[in-house]
């Protein structure tokens, strides 16, 4: 249902679109410094950063923001709520959609940043702050300094949208709607009205203590928790939406598997194909290698932490490779990617991919795919098909084209829920 947004929302969307353009393209944008620091600290490869930023550029234009707002009938709230977004750090700016959803909705954003990716969100917040400066700010959250944490500790840990400077906050001062920090302690007594994060039910338990101890979130606050682990694809090498010699369907598959070293829930973890892995292994290996080269794997100077991360992933996969070899399974092992064909199309829970870059290959047809989706729905983020048309899935959702695996539209639904819709529902 499309409804016209109110004037304030429209203005906000326009300002945000300008902000995004400014952030991505302006020479004065703090983004460049954020990228430099991210690269200097080896948090992500240059290729992955460029890829993600180009995806934002493609998918977050003014018309995309307006369409998203209208789809969810967003109206400016009379009493804005404080929404805490807890960022993961597995991909560059993985919480991009959440940040935009909170600001678009007209509510107050507070961010718990990941130490694996602090600079990119801060640079975005800085630009948003500049462009949304005329926006009325309603009752921002009041934080208090707990007795056991000195204000020195807080200020030295605090990261604000004033990039690179400390915000000397006292208990009487209030952070703005652009408040973001890498430390839970800085969120003491935030009492957020809602929280969005990606993790697992176990993670909720893990952080529950902190939320309670520091009164970070209200007791009754709704929490949007995303728990899926990987995505699945039906891959028929004979079917391609491109169909040119220069571009084979393997290119999309390799990208969906290799990008970000297979981290992230949109990365493919299960391939269902009418063709066995052995038959395709040569061509697939070539495309994986090409894609990994394109992703900067192995060819880029990264810091020790970055190298260690990749080495750890390779070792984790080697362990799995060793046991699959004992089971005499067909495998393709290519750096940070391991693809293994299973004997049985009904994959057991214990056989599901559990490490980034681990991919299970299952020989089967569309019915096999549907059965796997039905059985493992709680683990599966997206269902891709390498065809132009989409398919209806057993749970009423739809498949997505494989070539959009790592470039989702702004209004995609992580775990089946559009965050903007969720905010509109809970906050009115």
């Amino acid at each position: 249902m499309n409804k016209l947004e109110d004037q304030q929302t429209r203005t906000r969307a326009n300002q945000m679109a300008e902000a995004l353009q400014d952030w991505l393209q302006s020479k004065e944008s703090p983004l460049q410094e954020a990228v430099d620091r991210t690269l200097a600290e080896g948090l992500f490869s240059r290729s992955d950063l460029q890829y993600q930023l180009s995806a934002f550029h493609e998918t977050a234009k003014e018309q995309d923001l307006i369409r998203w707002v209208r789809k969810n009938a967003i109206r400016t709230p009379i009493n804005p709520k404080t929404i805490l977004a807890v960022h993961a750090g597995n991909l560059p700016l993985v919480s991009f959609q959440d940040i935009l959803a909170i600001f678009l909705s007209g509510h107050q954003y507070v961010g718990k940043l990941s130490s694996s990716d602090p600079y990119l969100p801060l640079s975005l917040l800085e630009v948003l702050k500049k462009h949304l400066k005329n926006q009325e700010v309603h009752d921002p959250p009041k934080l208090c300094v707990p007795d056991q944490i000195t204000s020195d500790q807080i200020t030295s840990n605090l990261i604000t949208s004033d990039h690179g400077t400390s915000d000397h906050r006292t208990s009487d001062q209030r952070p703005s709607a652009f408040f973001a920090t890498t430390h839970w302690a800085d969120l003491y007594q935030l009492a957020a009205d809602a929280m969005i994060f990606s993790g697992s039910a176990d993670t909720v338990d893990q952080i529950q203590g902190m939320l309670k101890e520091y009164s970070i979130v209200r007791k009754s606050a709704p929490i949007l928790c995303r728990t899926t682990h990987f995505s699945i694809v039906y891959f028929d090498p004979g079917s391609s939406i491109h169909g040119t010699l220069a571009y084979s369907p393997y290119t999309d598959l390799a990208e969906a598997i290799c990008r970000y070293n297979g981290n992230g829930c949109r990365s493919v973890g299960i391939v269902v194909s009418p063709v066995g892995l052995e038959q395709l292994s040569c061509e697939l290996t070539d495309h994986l290698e090409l894609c990994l080269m394109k992703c900067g794997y192995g060819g880029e100077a990264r810091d020790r932490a970055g190298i260690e991360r990749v080495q750890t992933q390779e070792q984790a996969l080697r362990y799995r490779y060793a046991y699959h070899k004992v089971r005499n399974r067909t495998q393709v092992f290519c750096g940070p990617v391991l693809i293994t064909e299973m004997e049985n199309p009904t994959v057991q829970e214990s056989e599901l991919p559990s490490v980034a870059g681990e991919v299970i290959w299952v020989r089967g047809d569309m019915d096999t795919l549907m059965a796997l989706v039905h059985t493992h729905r709680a683990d599966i983020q997206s269902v891709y098909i390498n065809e132009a048309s989409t398919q209806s899935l057993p749970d009423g959702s739809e498949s997505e084209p494989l070539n959009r695996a790592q470039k989702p539209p702004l209004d995609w639904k992580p775990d089946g829920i559009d965050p903007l819709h969720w905010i509109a529902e809970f906050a009115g």
Partner: protein
Amino acid sequence: MTPDVSTLFDASVPYAERAMQVFEHVKKNLPVYRTFAASFPDPAGDPHQIPLIPVRAFQDFDLIADGIHPETVFQSSGTTAGLKSRHPVADLSLARTAVITEFQRHFSLDNCTILCYAPGYADNPQSSLLWMMEQLIHQTAQHGSRFLPLGEPLHREEWSHLNAQGRQIILFGAAFGLLDLAELAPFAMPSNTVIIETGGMKTYRREVRREELHQTLSDVFRLDASQIWSEYGMCEMTSQCYAPGIPSSLATGDQPIQGFSSPHWVQVTIRDPQNPMRICEEGEEGKIGIMDLANVHSCPFFLTEDKGVSLETVDGEVIRFQVLGRWKRSQLRGCNFLIDTD
């Protein structure tokens, strides 16, 4: 290289030396393990670098050295997926030595009566737990050791009688069985009685935490909490690890944690579940890795699906560890490991 079995239980021979000898033997004689180990660098004399095969191998293969016929095959009670582990045991006398030697490190067989309560095992005569209990009972049969009849309450008089003879009573049982006994006949046991629970916290009625179980047993049988021990073993392991109870006097706000220690021929390590070749730091949760040299003719080097944490480490060796239940697959992959909790 055939390992000298007599040195397996010889603590004067450094563990690394014994482990490497067994590693070479297993690599040579167990093709499944040889194929697995071939994907890793040579351990070069360091037992920590010996690759641990997933415990699932005991379901997928018959893990016994080439040319050896098992005297028996232990079998697990099965998993939710209906798969059972099989552990072929080539030398029961060696297994018996492992069971008795470690038990004697903690208790004196000369002076104890062992009572075992094992409901739920009637449909699994191949249970390694039942066999272990049988061995201990056999050693002390002259003291009245036996399996307790199922569904019957404990008799206070028997306890008093044995106590009057100066015997220490050791009551062995799975968690749910012990809870049943507690309900059937609560009474004050002699203070030197030891109860050893062997796990099985998920009962047919409810799931109970180990601390809760110990407290219940301590309350019902009026025993100091130090008398409630735990045993850690499994079908795939020939040996057992024991954890003494925590004295009630220490059970205050900062309650010390009950920790298991392993026999000197078993090395327990806590492994990174994502990359099991990495050993976790003290205090870091991971999967429990086992190197049980008494498995010399099957597979001594394997990675369990149990979650554990090292409580005390000296020179890289785990001295005490805690068992935290089963590792959940949902704890892997995705964003959950990437949210800072600092």
